[in-house]
């Protein structure tokens, strides 16, 4: 079992004719992901990588019935592509693009309130993979293996690192979700944890957090209510110095939240084991 994505998910790739989009579409296809089409304005009617290309996401959805999209377009166009996907009826939107202006994403978040069925993963994230079934994004398939560990992470490379270690230790994964590290993003830690809690195919949970924001604390609150999942958390950045901030506005709203300490304490309180290094995670899961 899995969350969000499985072998039946019908995926389009926005920006399929681009270098990144094309490369990762091939990777996605090579593990069996059902890529049913792609978009590239002006190239509608052509075929790329064996699938039809459309001018717009709405055209693609109408023609293919796609319900998921991977977005690989440059940052200046990515926010628009997310909104386009939602308006076209896509319910799982995965935006890999890095460097989207924060104000664009704030507007996107507000826009998405009008499309409650649409779930956004990212932006600036590696995407998600359900090993053995499908992936949307750039998580390398070969470091993953099917199983029952749910993995959710704010960091790309740390995700790979932990997934590798889990796979090497014979601990397969139900789904791996890289939610991204941007300040304003789609699915939160808590959202993903909630999905894993409801997934009968997931028995263990690994949470890779980072300093900043309160997402980890919110996820911990949810787990503190009791869950059948055996969980291990890791927070990176515990020794990072406070940013060279200016102005008081940030301090006024964040107070003492967002430090590695507050996150680790929240997890411990929730009965979640906290790993000191990623190397420790596998041992603590068994």
């Amino acid at each position: 079992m899995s969350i969000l994505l499985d072998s039946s998910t019908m995926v389009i790739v926005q920006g399929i004719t681009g270098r990144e989009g094309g490369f990762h579409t091939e990777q996605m296809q090579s593990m069996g992901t059902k890529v049913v089409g792609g978009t590239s304005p002006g190239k509608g009617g052509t075929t790329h990588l064996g699938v039809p290309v459309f001018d717009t996401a709405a055209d693609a959805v109408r023609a293919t019935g796609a319900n998921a999209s991977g977005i690989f377009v440059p940052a200046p166009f990515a926010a628009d592509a997310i909104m386009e996907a939602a308006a076209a009826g896509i319910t799982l939107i995965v935006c890999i693009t890095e460097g989207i202006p924060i104000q664009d994403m704030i507007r996107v978040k507000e826009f998405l309130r009008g499309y409650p069925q649409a779930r956004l993963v990212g932006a600036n994230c590696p995407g998600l993979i359900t090993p053995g079934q499908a992936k949307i994004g750039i998580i390398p398939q070969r470091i993953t293996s099917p199983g029952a560990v749910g993995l959710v992470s704010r960091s790309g490379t740390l995700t790979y690192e932990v997934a590798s270690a889990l796979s090497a230790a014979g601990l397969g994964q139900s789904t791996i979700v890289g939610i991204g590290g941007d300040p304003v993003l789609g699915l939160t830690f808590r959202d993903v944890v909630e999905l894993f809690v409801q997934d009968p195919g997931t028995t263990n949970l690994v949470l890779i957090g980072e300093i900043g924001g309160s997402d980890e604390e919110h996820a911990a609150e949810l787990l503190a209510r009791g869950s059948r999942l055996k969980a291990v958390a890791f927070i990176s950045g515990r020794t990072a110095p406070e940013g060279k901030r200016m102005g008081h506005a940030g301090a006024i709203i964040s107070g003492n939240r967002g430090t590695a300490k507050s996150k680790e304490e929240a997890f411990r309180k929730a009965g979640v084991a906290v790993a000191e290094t990623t190397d420790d995670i596998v041992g603590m899961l068994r």
Partner: protein
Amino acid sequence: MKLLEYQAKEVLASLGIAIPPGVVARNPAEAAAAFARLGPVAVKAQVPVGGRGKAGGIKLASSEAEARRAAEQIIGMDIKGFKVPLVYCEAALDIAREIYLGFTVDRDARANILMLSAKGGMEIEQVAEESPAAIARLYPNPWRGPLDFELTQLVFDAGLGDLSRPLVSLIKKLYRAIPDYDALTAEINPLVVTKRGEVIAGDAKLEIDDNAMWRHKDLEEKYGAVIEGDPYEVEAKKRGLTYVSLDGDIGIIGNGAGLCMGTLDLVQRAGGRPANFCDIGGGAKAEVVENALAVILMNPKVKGVLINVFGGITRGDEVAKGVVTARDNLKMTLPLVVRMSGTREEEGREILKRNGIEPGVSGWEAAKKIVELTRAGVT
């Protein structure tokens, strides 16, 4: 990009917000001239960080000689790693009240937040902690911006109803910094009400989203070159690296912010002190590694470097070749530990060993190794 006070005020003025008369001075003579023009002035260090007052970066001058002396003392001083490039000489205000007004991004709410308090001035963070109700808050809809009735409610909630009209109008102007300039923070503290009843920006902080600078090339051209921060950070920025200077002696390179931060944690845990944070992003091309190493080696305190790379799409052997090439091009002699995992990691390690570079199997082992090697170097 964090604008300096005078830059932020220029932007506010362009949005129609009143600012005090002021003049930029790049040397003591210009400060003296500013006094001649404006009379008694505050001579203020221009650095993109807070706390300059406590650091001695603001001096009042009530004579030309004092203005000259203040500029002499302040220009060139170091405030939290920033060398003060110039001062801003600003006419003193006849202050009746000080208000706090600020927009910023509340990342938990994934929204912009607007805060207003009748208790403005230096101690606003204390106010936030001790009497949070004294700060009125509003999350404006990002497509609509704050509406008049929302701002009116905010102003009355903050106990500033007697200033309702000028404040609603001013806040709407300040808000324009968000859609028009991609401001992440737009803050006026204090917002001064003078004894004559004018409402004027006493100070101003403006941070523009670096990811949106392509939309604001005018700002970058006009102000980008003025701010002189940490020299390594400046150099790293030129080379397109995500780099933050720290005060230790072990250079760190990683791909991905999470992995990089995790590497700092490991080095610290192993008893070492990182000299920097440097994220080279996905892949690990020789050219990028070389740029990162070059910046790190500029810092004479650095005694060794740890590279921690996970090869996702990139193969380990390619990463190894890139690192070797970079080191050779830079003629680097300091201890270098490279930990890599992912595809073809064994082949990669083999290449490193053959070239005299210490390969690490796990991040933790690698961290202990570089700490050991740099300590050995000291002995």
